[in-house]
């Protein structure tokens, strides 16, 4: 064990943190691109949203896998619940993001409309929530 006092130790390995930074930044960016598309009907914004969402999925996918390992590794420790919660949030975020990738593969206005906007909001909120939990200092349950 490290010498760091238990109350200040982060939950994540630094590399896991870097992987997680991608969905945290890209899902909300995709949301803003969607909002701009719905306001302007300028197709480049839905193209941006599709790529941002794809980037969040690609790198975020590794963060999800890592969180599985962590959830199992931490299952007998004091932070088991947080490890599990982080995994669940990331897994749901990723699945919602995947559905949104298909939604954004539709053409024209159908690539976003209400469904795409809701999916973007959900994946952005889940990414931010997962980040909040992941980067909080470890506290005993």
């Amino acid at each position: 064990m490290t010498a760091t006092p238990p109350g200040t130790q982060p939950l994540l390995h630094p590399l896991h943190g870097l992987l997680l930074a991608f969905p945290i930044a890209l899902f909300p960016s995709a949301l803003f691109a969607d909002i701009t598309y719905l306001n302007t009907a300028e197709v480049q914004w839905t193209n941006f949203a599709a790529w941002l969402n794809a980037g969040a999925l690609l790198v975020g996918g590794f963060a999800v896998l890592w969180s599985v390992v962590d959830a199992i590794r931490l299952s007998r420790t004091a932070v088991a619940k947080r490890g599990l919660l982080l995994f669940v949030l990331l897994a749901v975020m990723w699945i919602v993001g995947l559905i949104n990738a298909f939604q954004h593969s539709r053409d024209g206005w159908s690539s976003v409309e209400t469904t795409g906007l809701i999916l973007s909001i959900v994946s952005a909120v889940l990414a931010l929530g997962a980040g909040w939990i992941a980067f909080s200092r470890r506290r005993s349950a």
Partner: protein
Amino acid sequence: MMVARNLIAVSALALALASCGQSRPGIDQEGADPNLPAQRETLLPPMKIATPVGWEGETPKAPDGFTVTALATGLKVPRQMLVLPNGDILVAEGSGQSAPALRPKDVIAGLIKARGKTDVKGGNRLTLLRDRDGDGKAEVRTVFADGLNSPYGLAFVDGQIYVADQDALLRFAYRDGDTKATGPGVEVTKLPSRINHHWTKSLAASADGTKLYVGIGSNSNIGERGLAVEGDRAQIWEIDRVTGAHRPYATGTRNPTAMAIQPETKQLWTVANERDELGPQLVPDYLTSIRDGGFYGWPYSYWGPNADPRVHPQKPEMVKKAIRPDYALGSHVAALGLSFVSGEGLGPWKHGAFVGQHGSWNRQDLSGYKVVWVPFANGRPAGKPQDVLTGFLKDGHARGRPVGVAYDPVGRRLLVADDLSNTVWRVAPRR
């Protein structure tokens, strides 16, 4: 536990997606009044590629009383053909540029679609074929012109051969019996070529020979590259043969891939490929006469008044103007060839048109992959399409894909270009 539950959820989702591409039986989409089911925009656009297999010495199948032979093989992506006055045949070979991928979807769909295409690179040339002894094999084969830029549409008027490259209309001087162009092509006019999502430029000459018609496809499926790049697309241009001056003759034709003059009425007809991703049975590709100044719906609506929700803003005033096409050929059949029969005709095929159907890639049950006959009476389609040439599919694989069709009144035969097996097939009465 949680992982297992997620896996089950994902599998259920995948199953639900896979079942989306099925078409419903009993929906008749051929003829003047096709049955149009409700729009079904699925989460995952269904793609089903018939991957290529060889002919293994076999040929496509024609009705009894006809033989099919390979007039020429080993071509470089043959598309459209032109029968010259002396019975020689010109074949345009080319494969177009690919429009840039704008979204992850374009990258993935491009990779999937490539699995159903030939590996051969387009020849960018015109090949001349001659079969004087009528044995069904071309004994003379020359490169008539090369260094072209994805040639597609061909027409002959008054000693000139007109060639529609993907970016320009060219003409070559021709004298009876020539096997090679005597000079380089002369540009008649430039053609719209920015992006060139649908790159093929179809071509037909008016009955009196004064005008040329060029079919220009849309720059997207349904405006997803922005309507700013569609200004001169999804149109048929009328071009003055002498001056090269042009005007839009008809608009809203999403992808007019082959055009021809109906021999009795002298009216211009086209086959056009309609939009994708509204379901396996939307929207039917069509064969229609073209009215001067007519608007045929794209992008705002299809088959007359059926608005497309993917276009924003919607334009009800344009939807109101949209002309209903004359004759539906079926959804996603990808009609790429059109040739009317003139003179005494070929066996049972006397009044009507041959239509080449390249075949579908975005519905689970494959459609097209054949050449059909659309019977005409009094200058209008009369009756359901009949199979002329089949057997392009075998066990879910494609042995060939028909593109251009050409009725040859001199040799009394039908020619079919196949851009998968790189063959020109000849269908002739059995002797």
